[in-house]
């Protein structure tokens, strides 16, 4: 390799790093101080790119006009940030982190729809910046002037943030709040304005980053998700809340990406997440993060006694099964496919519940094992000609073994660290299916996987799905009340008591994680033969979120909640997709409402209502949706 190529790779890496740092710094500050993992940060960045596009066209095409546009964009996004903080974020500071992610995912969906409505679906290219259209020679290679400008900007912002944090009174308070929020409140600082200020600053940085990237990259609807996942990686690697850590992590990720683009283009995406996962495993608090201990953990609130279904509930389920058995004879063919898909999602949500409810492990990457259940068999078919029956066996095995392997280090973490690691693992699997074209055909997918001849009739396939899913759910339900389930719930309720009573909490969690993975794999292969194809989109991050939302909508403290939640969420999505043009935004509003007013989901709402009627909250016996009689 020639020296010039090295220079090129390094310079390209530096540009990526500069842009990543500007975005991630805002995310990191909010992470560190407000303890919120803001999934909507990438949306603010995307808005920055779109607004800058409009602003540049509205202002005179001069260098000054460009700067004015960038600054105006930053301020506009900051203002939007203020509105979001005052209406939504302010209510999120004390809710468990998975609900924060759900709520910010709701904002993400709303912004996505709003951008679609305002700017349309096409990519928008901003003109090159007046006065910076040329290229300069660096060590013999030509390099766009504007790229150098972005690098300079990132250094300027690093310096400005450093001054802000270490040379102003406000900065001292912020750093104090990063270490101990409650102490800062106790000495009389009004946290509310501190948090508002931080969020506005973070939104400003996101908007600025988007605006600065507009002349380099086209503004497009997908840039929100791409950047947020990379920014999460940077923030986790650098240490949540550390600016300097963020800077170094951005450098690392930028350079890695640039190197991989040249030498290993199949794995550029995966590489970032591999680094992120490795950092989480070796040093969960990142390069420069402090291990802030308990405050990052989820408070376990499990004071409702789980009980196996009573006679009335058993009868109800028998009736539901009977109804489902009649369904294929009355439904038109199109709706039969929808029904099968809904069954699979209900099952997937339950496999998630098994790990998240009794196990207390709220994963943000359950789609990984669903995806292995899809792509494992698809590849076995493509390369070895596996049929449906062998694949039905192979899928849960492959997914279960992967979960056994990945779980061995994942379940050691908890709270936000577990969430981030599972997110990274799922993204690794996804990027292999998306980017490793030679193996998986990338976005073209793997096609023509149809059920064996005997099961090709839709009704037969429906019954196959119904039998497999309901018996698997029955098995997992029994497991909740088996000695294994007792040990699992014991570890969630009180790890201290469990360990002092001889229970190996890690082992129980690890096996629960693996079982959940195996059953997600079964759900995956059922989906594969329903669709007849495997595509990366089946296992992207929105699938992980969907599963989480289904379970949360139903309520994690209840055995039946996830099933009800999955059914309602699917019905809602299908209904909205059919009848409403902006269904993403509507789902977004539902997610925000779920986090803010219904944190225990429908089953929580149900038992509250019943409790009110019976006079004593949650203490009434009898038939209950939540299964907690």
């Amino acid at each position, binding site marked *: 390799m020639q020296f010039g190529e090295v220079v090129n790779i390094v310079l390209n890496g530096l540009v990526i790093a500069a842009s990543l740092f500007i975005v991630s710094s805002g995310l990191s500050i909010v992470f560190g101080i407000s303890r919120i993992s803001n999934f909507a940060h990438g949306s603010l960045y995307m808005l920055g790119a779109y607004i800058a596009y409009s602003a540049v066209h509205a202002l005179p095409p001069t260098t000054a006009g460009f700067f004015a546009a960038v600054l105006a964009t930053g301020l506009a996004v900051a203002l939007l940030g203020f509105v979001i903080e005052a209406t939504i974020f302010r209510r999120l500071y004390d809710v468990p982190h998975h609900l924060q992610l759900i709520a910010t995912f709701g904002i993400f969906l709303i912004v996505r729809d709003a951008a679609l409505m305002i700017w349309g679906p096409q990519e928008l290219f901003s003109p090159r910046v007046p006065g910076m259209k040329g290229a300069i020679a660096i060590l013999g290679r030509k390099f766009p002037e504007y790229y150098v400008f972005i690098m300079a900007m990132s250094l300027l912002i690093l310096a400005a943030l450093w001054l802000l944090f270490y040379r102003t009174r406000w900065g001292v308070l912020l750093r104090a709040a990063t270490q101990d929020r409650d102490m800062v409140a106790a000495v009389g600082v009004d946290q509310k304005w501190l948090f508002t200020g931080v969020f506005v600053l973070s939104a400003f940085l996101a908007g600025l980053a988007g605006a600065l990237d507009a002349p380099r990259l086209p503004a497009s609807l997908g840039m929100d998700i791409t950047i947020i996942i990379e920014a999460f990686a940077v923030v986790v690697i650098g240490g949540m809340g550390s600016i300097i850590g963020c800077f170094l992590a951005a450098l690392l990720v930028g350079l890695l990406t640039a190197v991989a683009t040249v030498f290993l283009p199949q794995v550029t995406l995966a590489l970032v997440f591999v680094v992120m996962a490795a950092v989480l495993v070796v040093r969960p608090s990142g390069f420069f993060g402090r291990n802030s201990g308990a405050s990052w953990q989820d408070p376990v609130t*499990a004071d409702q006694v789980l009980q196996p279904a009573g006679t009335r509930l058993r009868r109800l389920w028998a009736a539901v099964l009977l109804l489902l058995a009649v369904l294929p004879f009355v439904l038109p063919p199109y709706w039969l496919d929808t029904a099968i898909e809904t069954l699979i999602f209900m099952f997937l949500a339950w496999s998630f519940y098994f790990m998240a409810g009794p196990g207390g492990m709220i994963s943000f990457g359950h789609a990984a094992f669903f995806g292995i259940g899809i792509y494992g068999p698809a590849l076995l078919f493509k390369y070895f000609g596996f049929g449906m029956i062998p694949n039905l066996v192979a899928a849960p095995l492959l997914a279960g073994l992967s979960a056994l392997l990945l779980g061995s280090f994942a379940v050691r973490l908890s709270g936000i660290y577990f969430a981030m690691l599972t997110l990274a693992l799922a993204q690794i699997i996804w990027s292999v299916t998306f980017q490793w074209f030679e193996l998986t055909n990338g976005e073209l997918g793997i096609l023509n996987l149809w059920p064996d001849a005997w099961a090709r009739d839709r009704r037969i396939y429906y019954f196959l799905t119904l039998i497999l899913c309901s018996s698997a759910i029955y098995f997992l339900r029994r*497991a909740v009340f088996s000695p294994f389930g007792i*040990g699992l719930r014991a570890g969630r309720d009180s790890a201290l008591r469990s*360990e002092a009573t*001889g229970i*190996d909490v890690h082992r129980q969690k690890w096996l629960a994680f693996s079982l959940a993975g195996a059953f997600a794999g079964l759900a995956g292969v059922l989906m594969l033969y329903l669709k007849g194809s495997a595509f990366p989109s089946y296992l992207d991050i929105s699938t992980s979120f969907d599963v989480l939302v289904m379970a949360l909508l139903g309520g994690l403290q209840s055995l039946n909640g996830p099933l009800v939640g999955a059914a309602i969420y699917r019905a809602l999505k299908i209904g909205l997709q059919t009848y409403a043009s902006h269904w993403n935004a509507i789902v977004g509003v539902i997610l925000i409402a779920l986090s803010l007013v219904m944190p225990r989901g429908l089953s929580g709402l149900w038992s509250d209502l019943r409790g009110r009627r019976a006079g004593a909250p949650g203490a009434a016996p009898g038939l209950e949706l939540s299964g907690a009689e």
Partner: protein
Amino acid sequence: MSTQPAPAREALLAVRGLRKAFGAVCAVDGVSFELVPGEILALIGPNGAGKTTCFNMLNGQLLPDAGEVWFAGRNISGWKPRRVWRLGVARTFQITQTYGSMTVLENVQAAFLSRHAQLLRLWTPARDLYREESMRLLHRVGMAAQAGRGCGVLSYGDLKRVELAIALANDPRLLLMDEPTAGMAARERLALMQLIADIVRERGVAVLFTEHDMDVVFRHAHTVMVLNRGRIIASAPPAEVRSDPQVREVYLGSGTMFH
């Protein structure tokens, strides 16, 4: 009431030079003592004396900076809590630790399931396993009537009783109890301590407990050990400790301690 020191036999628990510092604060500073089967040893001292830290090092929850813990002739320093438990060391916590999403009965059953290494069974319902054994223990601690209630809704005193039942499920040879009667009314306290004294007499269990209620301490302990700023300043039968001038000085101002 027995206020006689237990007859000296071979030590069940031997602690030597235990030390633990948190930053610049030395919470436990060179603590050594021994405990023989059938002995009730009370560990007392003002708040922050290092009692709980000491406890946490005995069952492996905290790793000591220095020193050794010997149990039944084995050096168990650095062992994990669950391994220490398997040897026959059970404990209760200062802030009770029970399973909130399970009934009182299930809490005790969980301990039996763990004792008999049943925790990997996935199919059999747990409700029928070790039910009688668990109920017997709940009778013993006076919680049988509440066996079906969830632990998340119990009063503090009741939770302490459940913890005792859980601890007894493993037939322990050593019981570590961090403030076993906190949150109970005076009569309940004496009844619970009487229960523990009975168990000690029946099974030859050794008990190490911390307590703020001096009435309970002086009535039931064979030996009283006074901890102050991480060091043992006295260790003797209750009558001697009561008249120890150094102990009196440590407790000066809290006149309720000595009637």
